């Protein structure tokens, strides 16, 4: 499926429920790196990559909504680039301590997935990507 807007996420709850998503198997840093690749390819970010008041070592999930530029020139969106580079700077500066969801009790993962989804909800609704019907599963 070709999507003009794409949610890059390692939050399994979101990738399951949002049709236009690019599920990432990996850490929040991987999500940011993949987002940067897209920004380099001419996509613009629609949501701040640093949403939520938690540090990289405090939150295993990251989701970024991006949009393909309409022009064919593939020009890089500078604001997007600045935001993603700033986010990467913060994440790479403490790469060793980035929290991974691996081995986390399910209950804990569910809390994290819930907050991540809640923080993205407004943006997703804005771009009509949040399902109107109840989402499946209890945040996992």
């Amino acid at each position, binding site marked *: 499926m070709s999507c003009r807007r794409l949610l890059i996420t390692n939050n399994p709850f979101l990738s399951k429920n949002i049709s236009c998503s690019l599920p990432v198997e990996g850490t929040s840093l991987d999500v940011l790196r993949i987002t940067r690749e897209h920004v380099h390819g001419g996509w613009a970010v629609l949501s701040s990559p640093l949403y939520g008041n938690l*540090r990289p070592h405090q939150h295993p999930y990251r989701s970024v909504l991006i949009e393909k530029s309409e022009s064919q020139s593939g020009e890089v969106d500078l604001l997007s680039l600045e935001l993603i580079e700033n986010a990467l700077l913060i994440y790479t500066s403490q790469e060793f301590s980035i929290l991974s969801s691996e081995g986390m009790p399910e209950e804990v993962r569910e809390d994290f997935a819930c907050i991540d989804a809640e923080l993205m909800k407004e943006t997703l609704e804005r771009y009509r990507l949040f399902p109107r019907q109840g989402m499946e599963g209890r945040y996992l």
Partner: protein
Amino acid sequence: MKLELHRVKIHKLAWGKETSARDGLLTVNKEELLTMLRKDERLAKVDLDFASPGESVRILPVKDVVEPRYKMEGPGGVFPGMVSDVETVGEGKTLVLSGAAVVTTGKIVRFQEGIIDMKGPGAEYTPFSRTCNIVVILENTEDLDKHDYETACRMAGLKTAAYLARKCLGAAVDSVETYETPNLKDAMAAHEGLPKVAYLYMLQSQGLLHDTYLYGVDVKKILPTLLNPTEVMDGAIVSGNCVSACDKNNTYSHQNNPIIHQMFKRHGKDFNFLGCIVTNENVTLADKKRCSSYSINLAKTLGVDGLLISEEGFGNPDADLIMNCWKAERAGIKTTLLTDEYAGQDGASQSLADSTPEGDACVTAGNANEVVVLPPMDKVIGVPEEANVIAGGWQGSLAEDGTITVELQAILGATSELGFTKLGCYTI
């Protein structure tokens, strides 16, 4: 608009038959208050406790702190859109139980909330070690939706604060402060020769546990708007924000916003303070652009020469702060920023996630990542195990003897970006 704050000083708490204030003693009728709070069927359990300055007591996880206030004379009632009707506030007379604070505690999701120590090194960092705290301990019913639980907790704090002050109406008042703000027409003509200034009041609005309410409206849904500073004193802004403890602006800090107080102090001497512009900090990029442009346009429309800007939170809001800053400066409006820093435990990382050369006047409330060791307390109110999972803590933060090793981030109000503490940073 003219508001009188009638302060009743509180420096001691006691349980008693009747809730009342006398000679600095706030007596609380526990049963009456509990009966009121237990009416909320979303809460499975409610309990109350006290924590006073100097006691060996730790409260965690703390959700919000609220100062007891109640309208003696209207219009409107405190916490409009929450406890009272949505009528405009900021005029008349308001009773304040100065020195008392309602502290709500209870689990919501596992990594949130903060710590208040009433004694020891942790007490140095939080302003709420110096208040007489009425602690509301909450437990949700099983399978309650997280939004509903957050609402229930928020409301319990506000209701308790309003209840306490309402019961003390008629108590002997220790001092009266008057705040008066003329309408714009008169304000513009006043204080000729002094620069006109406004306060750009940024509010956290990212989603569940990261929200703030203005007259009951979820702030992420607003466009920036003008607000009279006295409206804030009556609780027009209410916190629904739970992270991070150190730099979330809890309701108490909004009610007592020290920036507003400092601006009033200098008003008419150093500048002409016209009022507040409230704006949000959304996740969506389009909102960031829209709201920063809109705020600065409001400032331009008011014709101000300067804007003092305070941030709430870090990371994503840094982008809003920086946008507000350069958009104002490029419009010829001088800015000063109040923020805090996330420079890493070693202090060597870049403090803000964004920067601009225009941000040449910046006050910081400290590095939230600095690590502190909190020795054990005799008594813990709340859930001590939360130390391992709160923001700023980590697995192993809580030692067997009750010592907690955490980043300042976990201490409530430690790096308040409303400037509620004396903490700051310097470079070595």
